[in-house]
């Protein structure tokens, strides 16, 4: 490879390295600030590096005193509560739209695409009053249930199912299989790719979502991480060291998920973009 490099390629490489460093700069700022004491964050001149890299008091402060362990638990409940039913129900719906003939199938499917275009802001208020009517306000139900049905997940699993040859179903029918067995034993295992990609998207969305939980969760014990981290920012006094430590704690799981499943992650994102 090195032999084929041309002069211009060296230049692009050099520029890439420089810009990458710039991209990493905010991460470094966050990481280093998480080891600072409050004094260090307000003492001029501001230093980029902390005095003591072994100062973990911000972390223990957040996790124990400021209840972040509890918010972690809430986030996991919400994320799993959305993920499992969404993947299950969406792939079932995908099967129906890909493989079962029923009246009005196409019009119904197209009408669902409307849901894809609706901006969250437009459905915020009616949904909010619906949650109150259902008695779900200030409970995880309000965060979980409305986020379970998903057009994108249904759509992409259906796409993959359509690419699987019908002859597989045909031979299964000859062997006496019904819809459930075709779905569960034949098509679902073959759709692993899109299910995994959509699953990752779903977790990231649930983990990062801010606006909707902000509206339907009220009591502090039920906050999710995104709200908890926004609340660290006070009207008067904001402790940057705690704020930036929280930034690490909050994004850590998603970053790990991204780094370990990068291929599927990028695939899912490239297909849909993060829903917001």
């Amino acid at each position, binding site marked *: 490879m090195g032999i084929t490099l041309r002069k211009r390629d060296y230049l692009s*490489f050099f520029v890439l390295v420089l810009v*990458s460093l710039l*991209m*990493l700069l*905010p991460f470094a*700022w*966050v990481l280093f600030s998480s080891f600072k004491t409050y004094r260090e*964050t307000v003492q001029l001149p*501001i230093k*980029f590096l902390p005095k003591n890299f072994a100062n973990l008091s911000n972390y223990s402060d957040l996790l124990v005193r400021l209840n972040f362990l509890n918010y972690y638990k809430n986030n996991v409940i919400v994320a799993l509560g959305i993920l499992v039913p969404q993947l299950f*129900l969406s792939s*079932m*719906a995908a099967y*129906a*739209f890909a493989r*079962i*003939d*029923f*009246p009005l199938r196409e019009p119904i499917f197209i*009408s*669902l695409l409307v*849901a894809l275009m*609706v*901006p969250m*802001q*437009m*459905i915020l*208020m*009616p949904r*909010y009053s*619906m949650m109150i009517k259902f008695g779900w306000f200030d409970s995880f139900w309000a965060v979980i249930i409305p986020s379970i*049905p998903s*057009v994108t997940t249904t759509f992409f699993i259906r796409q993959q199912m359509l690419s699987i040859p*019908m002859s597989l179903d*045909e031979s299964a*029918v000859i062997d006496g299989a019904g*819809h459930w067995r075709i*779905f569960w034993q034949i098509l679902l295992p073959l759709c692993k790719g899109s299910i995994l990609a959509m699953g990752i998207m779903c977790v*990231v969305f649930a983990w*990062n979502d*801010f606006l909707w939980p902000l509206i339907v969760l009220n009591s502090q014990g039920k906050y999710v*991480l*995104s709200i908890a*981290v*926004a609340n660290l*920012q*006070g009207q*008067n006094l904001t402790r940057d060291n705690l*704020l930036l430590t929280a*930034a690490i704690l*909050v*994004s850590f799981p*998603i*970053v790990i998920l*991204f780094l370990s499943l*990068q291929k599927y*992650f990028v695939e899912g994102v*490239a297909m849909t*973009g993060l829903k*917001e």
Partner: protein
Amino acid sequence: MNHKMHYALFRGYAMSSIRNRHIRWKNMCWALLFAGPTVFGLYLFFIYPMFKSVYISLTKWDGLSSPQFIGIANYVQLLSDPTVGKELFNTAFFIVLLVPITVVLALLLASAFDKRLPGTGFFRTVFFLPYVMLPVVTAQIGMTMFNSKFGIINQWLAWLGVPAVQWLTDPWLVRSVIVLMNLWAGIGYYAIILLAGLQNIPRQYYEACELDGASAWRKLTNVTVPLLTPQLFFSVVMATIGAFKMFDFIFVFGKSNLYARESLRTMAYGIYERGFTFLDIGFASAEAVVLGAFMLIITIAQNMSQERWVYYS
């Protein structure tokens, strides 16, 4: 009966013997069982609230008492409200600035990735990483870095002899900070999308260009851009929608900073504030309907222009 027919019957195609009607009936039950929950949920939580919003926008409602029908009064008020005007301006500003810059920079980045230089995998990860961060966190990182007193940016500028810059209170500077943080967060994503398109362009086209002695600019305009239009189109749509919905950044920047809030407020933020802080839900819904209509129009317009200028090979 051959197996194709057997299968067709199973799926509910075909004629009207009693047996077939039975199969059709059975299939409908299966369809209801399989698709029912998702379809019902989407109608209940997305499509019905959308229409409900249109109705609420024609009422005066504080969320507690019952809504009072007042016709298009909210829309009339919308037109004359200077704050809404500011929100419209800011939303448009972010779209006009962010969409082209994002796409152009992402294209440059993608073509650098496409050269398959050593370490490309690492660079891709680095540029994509900010995209997976919580928007709330991204905003807070930007806010602390650009803090005029305790931020590291001003500290470094001070070393260069630059006096403290009021990043977070000056209306134009704070908007630039938002643009910058959005670029930081989004550019890797669009680069990955464009890269997928670039990798599909056959090398021979470029080789042919080189034989003809075409310049790099001509290669870009005559080969790359035309063959990349589907991905460019997708990026423009996604970036526009993202800019339309910008909320988390504004919320975080404005939470403890009145100046920033007033100079940054977007429509998405205004809807939240009117609906949930001031409980003027009818008015907020009217603004939400306008935002939704804008997004719909732009999506449709972009889809129509797609037919004109997008080249699918």
